[in-house]
Every structure is written in C-alpha cells, then in structure tokens.
C-alpha cells in the first residue's frame, strides 16, 4: 500500500490582506501520507498546521501547488464525503440532542432514519456515551462533548479523519483517556488520521509519524518516524523509547526557533 491517500505537492498558501501585508501561511509543503497512517502535526502558533488541515478539507484553497486526496481534488473528496473533520471545540448544535448531533451528517447525506439511529447508537457505544443519547450538549462535560463530536465525525465512516487540536481544551486525565480511545478507534476502523496538536507527548504517543513545522512562513521542518510498537497502551508512555522520541521532537522544535 504505497499509493499515497493524501499528497501535498509544493503547496503554498498566502492570505492576502489589504495593502501589501501578505501573510505567507504555508510555503513549499511536500508531504505524502499512505493509508492507515497516523500523522501528527506539531509546531509553534502560526506555523500553518490548521491551514494545512483546512486545505485538505477544501475549506481553503491553496495559492499554488497541488493537493490530491485519494487521487482526487480536495473538492471532489469533500463532495464524496471522504473525510470527517473534528475541531478544537466540539461545535455541537445546541438545539439537537447528543444522538441527533451524531446523526447530523447522515441526515445531510440522506441516510434513512432507522439506519441513522442504528448507526448513532453504535457510535455512542463506541465513545462510551450510550446513556447520554437523549441529553443536550450543555448537559455534558467538555470531554463528553468532544467525544460526541468524534462520534459525529465517524458516523459516516470516512476513510480520513482530520483533527484540529481535538483534545486541546481538555484536562490531562481526560485527554490521556481520549487518546487511548482514539487509538482504539483508529485500529478498529483502519482510518487515516491527520492530527494537529500543541503537545509533544501527545504527538509522540499517538502518531506513526510526527511532522514538525516552523513558523513564518509555515514550512515542514522535519518529519520524525515514531517507531513505538503498536498497539500503544498506558505503559507506552513510560518506556524509554517514548522519552527518547519526545526529546527528539522537542529538539527539533527548538531548531525551528533558530531559523533553518
């Protein structure tokens, strides 16, 4: 399986603003991702991690270069519902119950009601929220809300998950729990994950490759192979190789500050 599922080729993204203050968000980005990889993007603020994800999702257009997703344009991939997107905040619809939130993408896609309900039920089980299906989002804690948003992204079984700091707003304990759940889901569903994070241990623990990015202009600084054994467990965080790799990533990040 060496055909890339996602490929960035010489991608530039410039945000034009009034006057001549153009902001170069991304420059010369080249990256190939093969199916079932778990790619973490890490870097200081303003390095274009989120922009990279939004380009892949067809929520922004590249200024130059080419992005292919499953050998299609991002727009076609979006129309084919190839990916699920998870934001930093849960972005749930307040007027819908948990169950109805999970069903939202399926409603848009015209899936018949009985099938939607079975699917929502199954996914809420997967993220451990079966008892809360009739609750409204505001009755749930932040961690639970984020699990709903993950269930929603998985509801239509996309082959790609784009996750933009999904655990950023969670406390440490909930966050580690969610990381384990996410890895379980990833193994079971055999999806490809693009995961933006600010946390070095999170990137190392989750990913198969960690992409270190540098800011102004946003570039890929280094790609680090994370050769920790699968499946990862609670013990993974305590093994020596884990610490070695976090040090490698940390030093690479430090390198981004001193220019390249």
């Amino acid at each position, binding site marked *: 399986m060496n055909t890339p599922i996602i490929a960035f080729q010489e991608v530039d993204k410039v945000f034009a603003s009034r006057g001549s203050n153009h902001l170069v968000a991304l420059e010369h980005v080249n990256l190939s991702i093969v199916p079932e990889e778990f790619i973490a993007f890490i870097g200081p603020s303003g390095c274009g991690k989120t922009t990279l994800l939004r380009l892949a999702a067809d929520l922004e257009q590249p200024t130059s270069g080419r992005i292919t997703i499953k050998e299609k344009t991002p727009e076609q991939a979006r129309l084919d519902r190839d990916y699920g997107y998870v*934001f930093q905040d849960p*972005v749930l619809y307040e*007027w819908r119950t948990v169950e109805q939130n999970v069903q939202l993408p399926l409603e*848009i896609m015209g899936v018949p009601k009985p099938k939607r309900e079975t699917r929502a039920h199954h996914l809420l089980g997967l993220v451990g929220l079966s008892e809360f299906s009739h609750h409204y989002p505001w*009755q749930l804690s932040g961690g639970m809300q984020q699990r709903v948003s993950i269930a929603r992204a998985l509801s239509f079984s996309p082959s790609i998950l784009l996750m933009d700091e999904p655990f950023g707003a969670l406390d440490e304990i909930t966050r580690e729990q969610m990381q384990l759940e996410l890895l379980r889901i990833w193994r079971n569903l055999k999806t490809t994950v693009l995961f933006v994070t600010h946390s070095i241990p999170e990137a190392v623990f989750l990913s198969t490759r960690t992409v270190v990015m540098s800011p102004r202009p946003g570039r890929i600084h280094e790609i680090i192979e994370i050769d920790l054994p699968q499946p990862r467990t609670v013990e993974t965080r305590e093994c020596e190789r884990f610490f070695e790799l976090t040090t490698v990533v940390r030093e690479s990040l430090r390198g981004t500050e001193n220019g390249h």
Partner: protein
Amino acid sequence: MKKVNVTSLLSALIALAGLFLPWVATQSQVSGLAQVETASWAWIPLLALIVLGLIGSWSRAPVVAAIGLILGLSGALLALVAVKSALATGYTGSASLGFWFVFLGELLGAAGMVNCLTTLSGADRVTYVLREVVPPLVVPAFLLLLWQGIVEGLRVPIAFFPSVTDVVRVLFSAHAVLVDDSIHTFIRQMLFGYILGAAMGVLTGMMIALSPFLRRGFLPLATAVSSIPVIGLAPVLGRAFGVDWESKAAVASIVTFFPVVINMVQGLMTADPRKMDLLHSYAARRGQIFRKLRFPHALPYLFNALKITSIISLISVIVAEFLIPGPPEGLGQRISLSARSGRYDITFAAIAFASTLGILFYGFIALLERVFTAWHSSFRGAQRR
C-alpha cells in the same frame, strides 16, 4: 431575647393612637370613632388587631410575620370600611387624622411584615412560599388598598381619579361592552395586523438573508424606516385604509414587520462559522444549511422581536384608535370617549382590559419561545457549564 421589631411596634402604636383621634370632621363637630355611632362597631375588632400586632412585634418567627401581615391588611381594610360608613352618614368633609393614623399604621405594619418575609432564610417549603410566593402577591393587594384608602378618605371624585371599587364595579356591570371592545381591538385589529406583519417579516427576512443584493440594498433602508415612529403616520393610513379596523391593523402590521425583518436577518446571518464549515465538510446544499443551521439559529432572535412587537403593536392599535376615530368601538375609543366625559372609572376598566390582554399575549409568545427554543442559553440557567 430577640430584638424588638421596631417597624411593627411603631406602626401598631401609630394605629393605636388613631383609635382615640377624630375619624370624621364637620364644621360643627369633631368626633372620635367611639362617638361616630354608625362606625363604632369597628372599634373593638380594630383594638384587638392592634394589640395582637403589638404582641407580634416581639417575635421574628415566620409564622408570626405571616399572621402580622394578615392582621395589618385586614386592619387597614376594616378601617376603610368603617370610615366609609361613617362618611356615608351625612358628613361632607373627608376623613380626619384618626382614620389616617389607623389606616397608614396598619399598612406600614403589613409592609414591615412583608419585609420580614423577604429576608427569611431556610429551604423548607413553607419558608419558600412565604419568601418567594407571598410578597409578589401581597404587594399589588397592598397598593390597591392604599389607592382605595386615599380615594375614599379624601373623597376624590370619579372625574378626577376613580377608586378601585369604582373600576371593579364597571368591570362587572359593563363587561359585555368591554369584551366586545377587546375583541374588536385585540383580535380584529391587533392580532390580525400582528400575524400579518410577523409572517411578512419572516419571509422578507429570509429573502434578504439569501440575497446579497437585498441585504446590501434593502436592509439599511429597512433599518432606517424602522426608526420612524409609524404611529405618526396613522392619519395617513386612515386615509388609505379607511377609518374602520383596516387602518389600525395596518399600523399593527407595520410596527411588527420591521423589527421582525431586522432580527430575522441578524439571526440568519450570524450562525457560527465553524458550524458552517462543518456542514460544508459534509457537502451540505444551501437549502440544508438553511434548514439545519441558519433557521434554528435565528429562532431566538425571531422570538425576541415577536415578544417586543406583541406589546408595541397593542399600544399602537390603541393609540391609532385615538388618532383615527372610527365607529365607537374598541378599547382605545372607549378610553378616549370615557375620559372626555369624565367617566374615569370606565377609562381605567378599559385600561385594565388592555393591559391584561397585553400581558396574556406576551405570556403566550414567551411560552411559544420556551417550547421552540428550550435549548437556548437563556433557559438553561445553572445547568450551563
């Protein structure tokens, strides 16, 4: 021992003094309550009430406060009945110092008790009812009693200010006319215009939200027009739609239309961009984005406009009846006709009908709001994280 409740002690003493002062006065004679034959029956129960109040002022127990409240209000009522019957026996002047001491002393005592009730602490059911439920019910009764006492005691003529009982009498004797007036004003004019204006407003708001041309070109104009006091145009509308109900309904629909349009557009245009991105990522069509996101998001905005305009449109219809006098029916006409002939009891009764309708209608819209936007943060209260 607990501190003496100064307010209730003082008010009981004032009331007690009033028993020995003259209640009614004429040029020739000054008489205390005991000497006013027809009213002397009130002396003993009043004394009893006041003594009980005196005793009660040494305690701050909730039950005592509640009893004190009843004592105070019934004392004031008793004094009122007594002075009324005394005045009715041929005295021409107004009530004298004795009555005012007893009446105001008892009311002051009752007010002190309400104050005690509002500061109660405790979570049991009785305390809760005494603290939260009783005061808002008692205070209006209290004010009505004060109103009645002042009008009766000073013998204010109806053509200057009616008493509560004058108004209540009209509410009963003329209720058929007032109900007809209400149907005319509320249903035929206000409700018709309101529903028409709101429906047009919702549709126009949707059109504006969907069309950048209308949004840029028409919305600023709508905002400007909405600040025109439409009621000033009533005579013009009267010319256009005739002096009958149609012109008033037109006023109601215009005052409803613009706020609904503006709020609707605002609601439809301010949906969370991330929620928008999300639907975009599912490749949702425009109509789906509208149904699943923009419209539900706009509902709280819409209900805000509907609540405000429910009151504005009723007021506007009533004022329009003043400005475009047509056939003599409707609450606005009733108000202006009765006021012109000095029948303020009828005026007040008509106003009572109008405000009751306004409150009920507002309550109805608020109820609809609760049903349709129960998810909105304004209804979640403490549940919100």
